[in-house]
């Protein structure tokens, strides 16, 4: 552990004499900082998307797994509602069951029919919200009992539309991670290209360094350190900018739609802080490989 730490410290502190051996190259320096910043900015959004999708998938899975709806015909008498509530309250695994009020049902339908809906003019079924406890209830047993005692009731555990929603959220999370992976690979490729360009531009410097006995690793180190630090600095800028832009997005109440809640929560805020470190590691590996390969080619 001490070895890598010392190596990282040496990389950051560097050797001023060795650094001066390779002249600063303006265009590749600016290009590297820009690419790292842009990629880190995109990575922040991909990360936020992925984490938000994960949170939403978990929330939907938890909330919907515990919720079900018992539906009775619109003309079902109050006695049927009472019977249904009695059945539900005596079923193990059900924490709560209550009939939705007219106002609640009106609120459910208002997105389609508007707030002035006269509920009594429509054949709207009567609904009972069922909340399971953590252990859950015996779905087959409850259905059998309802069939026997209240055959006109229909139990909907939301499974039909819950599964594809959760699947979609899980895939969105996976796509987010894939995008982050692609961003990392693209950044590695661009930094490797910039390093190659810098090495080509400094061919004469490399020749002189070789002439006086510099080892490949000494020459490569000067480029690797430079590109690693530039990438780290660019990525820090990109992450800060990305977080600032995320903060400007309209916020939600935490239970609302997916788009209104894109961002980080709790320990999730640590993830964007990892991006500059990962970017620097990617730059280190990409530049080192490119530099050593290029130096081997030049002889």
């Amino acid at each position, binding site marked *: 552990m001490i070895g890598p730490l010392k190596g990282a410290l040496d990389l950051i502190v560097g050797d001023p004499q*060795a650094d001066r051996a390779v*002249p600063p190259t303006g265009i590749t320096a600016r290009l590297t900082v820009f690419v790292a910043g842009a990629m880190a900015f995109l990575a922040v959004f991909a990360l936020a998307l992925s984490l938000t999708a994960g949170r939403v998938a978990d929330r939907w899975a938890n909330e919907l797994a515990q919720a079900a709806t018992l539906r009775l015909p619109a003309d079902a008498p109050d006695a049927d509602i009472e019977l249904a509530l009695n059945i539900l309250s005596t079923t193990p695994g059900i924490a709560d069951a209550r009939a939705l009020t007219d106002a609640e049902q009106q609120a459910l339908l208002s997105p389609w029919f508007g707030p002035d809906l006269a509920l009594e003019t429509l054949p709207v079924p009567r609904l009972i919200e069922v909340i399971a406890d953590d252990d859950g209830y015996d779905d087959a047993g409850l259905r059998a009992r309802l069939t026997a005692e209240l055959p006109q009731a229909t139990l909907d555990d939301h499974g039909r539309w819950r599964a594809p929603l959760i699947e979609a959220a899980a895939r969105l999370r996976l796509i987010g991670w894939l995008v982050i992976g692609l961003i990392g690979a693209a950044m590695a490729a661009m930094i490797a290209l910039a390093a190659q360009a810098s090495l080509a531009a400094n061919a004469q410097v490399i020749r*002189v360094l070789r002439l006086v*006995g510099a*080892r*490949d690793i000494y020459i490569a180190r000067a480029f690797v350190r430079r590109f690693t630090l530039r990438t780290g600095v660019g990525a820090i800028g990109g992450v800060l900018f990305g977080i600032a832009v995320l903060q400007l997005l309209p916020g939600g109440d935490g239970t609302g739609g997916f788009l209104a809640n894109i961002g980080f929560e709790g320990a999730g805020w640590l993830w964007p802080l990892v991006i500059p470190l990962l970017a620097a590691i990617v730059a280190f590996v990409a530049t080192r490989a490119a530099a050593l390969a290029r130096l081997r080619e030049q002889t």
Partner: protein
Amino acid sequence: MIELQNVSCGYGGNPLFSQLSLELAPGSFHFLTGPSGAGKTTLLRLCYADLRAQSGQVLLFGRDAAMLDRDAVAMTRRRIGVVHQDCQFLDHLSIAENIALPLTVADRASEAAGNLPELLAWVGLQAQANQLPPELSGGERQRAALARAVIMSPDLIIADEPTGNVDWEMSQRLMTLLVELNRMGKTILIATHDLTMIRSMKAEISARVLRLKDGELQQAGSEL
């Protein structure tokens, strides 16, 4: 020290020389002469492992050059000081930093503080220490290149046309410095086509003059 045995070398399938043999004994002084394009620079490059022979064997300090890996080549070059006609400096570094470069790349930069002032005085460049290479005259640059070549106290100094870009007085001054180094026990190999300079130096030092022509290396005789 350096030994070439039946070496062939050339470019693009055209050999510049073949079956060439040469031995540089420790403390010896050699001039290598011959017409342009005869292969003098190629021969020198073989001697500091900048080029690999197509056939034959090049022994550098007793080790087969063909068997040296890249790190070993770098280590070998630290035992050889090279002076080029065009000097090959890093133009963004001062003359003092350029002269100290071999120590810097060998992670021995701290030694420069002790060696540099003496070396700068020896080549007469104290006043130019902080100037950049493009700001120096041809002669000053050659002296700086010589200082860089000797700062690691190498066993062998190879100079490729070191007097090609300087006037007669400066070339005499450079040669005097090389003779001083030889008297300190360093092996010297100089490629030059300046026969007048060789004649003038032969009076001062026991030097072997080699002539590379038509792919063959011969010991020059009385024609000099």
